[in-house]
């Protein structure tokens, strides 16, 4: 059967299939597949969930069940081209993490988890990014921004950046 797909590209499917020999069943490909789609589309719409399920031989609900657990994958619309995780856990909070988050949301006129009108930036609070030696810190796509202040963070988030892998 040749499945008709509207969201997943042949390239995405090839990337997913390339990982198949690593696992003894296809359900284990769920999270890698979600990451592959998300890396390209910056969200995983419901159509993609159904198409991933069809490829993996699962019910769409099984993929959606896993996806919804993580609160990591956007579904309704893509996150910004830069997705900035601002750490608010204890080591960053002790050095101004909460204030940093508040400042950045204010400066960009968005609420936490919001995306700027031009789609360039999404700001999310994050739990410990594991970079407490550089607190307060931000993960912007694949780049760790260290020892941030409101001013340096505002400037850094205006920079163009490679997409997250």
């Amino acid at each position, binding site marked *: 059967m040749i499945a008709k797909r509207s969201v997943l590209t042949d390239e995405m499917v090839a990337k997913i299939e390339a990982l198949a020999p690593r696992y003894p069943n296809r359900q284990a490909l769920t*999270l890698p597949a979600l990451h592959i789609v998300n890396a390209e589309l910056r969200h995983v719409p419901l159509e993609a969930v159904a198409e991933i399920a069809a490829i993996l031989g699962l019910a769409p609900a099984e993929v959606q069940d896993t996806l919804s657990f993580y609160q990591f994958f956007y579904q309704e619309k893509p996150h910004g081209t830069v997705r900035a995780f601002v750490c608010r856990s204890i080591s960053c909070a*002790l050095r101004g993490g909460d204030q940093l988050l508040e400042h950045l949301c204010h400066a960009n006129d968005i609420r936490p988890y919001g995306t700027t009108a031009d789609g360039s930036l999404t700001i999310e609070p994050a739990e410990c990014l594991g970079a407490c030696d550089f607190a307060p810190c931000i993960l912007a796509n694949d780049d760790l921004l260290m020892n941030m202040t409101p001013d340096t963070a505002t400037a850094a988030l205006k920079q163009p950046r490679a997409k997250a892998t």
Partner: protein
Amino acid sequence: MQPFKPVLLEAVGVSDGYTLTSYKSRGGYAPLETTLSEKQPADVVEMVKASGLRGRGGAGFSTGLKWTFLPKDHPGPIYLCINADESEPGTFNNRILMEDDPHQVIEGIILSAYATRASTAYLYLRYEYPRSWHRLQAAIDEAYAAGYLGSNIRGSGFSLELYLHRGAAAYICGEETGLIESLEGKRAWPRIKPPFPAIEGLFRKPTVVNNIETMACVAQIARRGVDWFKSIGVPADPANPRDPGSYGPKLYCLSGHVEKPGCYEAPLGITARELIDHFGGGVWKGRRAKAVIPGGISMGLMTESELDTPLDFAGPGKVGCLGLGTAAVVVIDETVSIVDFLHNSCRFFAHESCGQCTPCREGTSWSLRLLERIKAGRGRLKDLDILLEIGSTMGMMPGSTICGLADGAAWPIKNAIKKFRGEFEDTIKRTNPSGWMVTDPVPALPIVGAH
């Protein structure tokens, strides 16, 4: 303090320390070749058992003993999972090892897979570590090319495939059965035990789950020997037959209000005060510490007067903390409100509770709502008793949850209120002068989103 030369961190500061060439020049992979050609898997298990190595991920269970729980003569497959879902607030030692010396970790993984007869190993890496991901993948590629991974490793007949698998930002994936469920493509709900993973784990097969730092320790034990490892740390207490001792070097993550935050290697048993003063340059801005987290936020709090507690596996428990945990020491200075600290802790656990067990899902969420109410100036003294009741009833220790996340959520609550009750009471009375004494029920507060 005795001078101590870093071993696990010897590649830190070496410009190309993460490459295969650099690792081999430091003596790496030679112990693996010797082991594969001269030793049986059982010898490696015995070596690690004899070393007294206890798992570095948080629970501190004997690594060698964990391996012996695997069924004998199992037809296979047996899986090895490496837990790199390091998410405990304050903890970053695994990140340093993966970024600065990935081959040390990989050698430990190959040795551990040989010992456990695993032919497939999955390294479960948290999403937030893209740099570790790239460094590890490059190192794995190098190791395959050099014949340290793949089929028939260095002509020994032993084969191992090592795969990276990425998480998606959920703390619960660090719980070993949560990790297994996540790897299988499901929501990361921890499993009821027994059966333990050693009997029925990943894909329903016998499985061992070990931490990154544990793997690095295995590599160093193979290189330097059991006697070297046992010469470091705190010997078993002869008066306590159940104490297995705290042997070996340990990576301590120091952060918060210190002059020089960082990951420092020291013998197990260094005190929090030595760590802060010797490595951290003291509490920042010349201030005093009000409280110190001994090993990640789950472990609770030590007061300033408890800072001479040795940070070995038995130490923090003697001052009412949950344990050594991940040995992530976070310093909180005298200017911080303990109410703010506890609010931050409760917010973390309310967000990260997986929602499977009612006492944890509701307990973490309600404790956050109580703290929010106190911070909003509507706290009552009775709230402290309610918080303590929540803290003493959720978790594996009271027996109400499947995994230990709730114990970790409960400990900061119990420690903070028991050790700083006066400050909580003063704050409540000061911010709610007309209502702090009220004990009538209040309407439900908004629900908190969680995993």
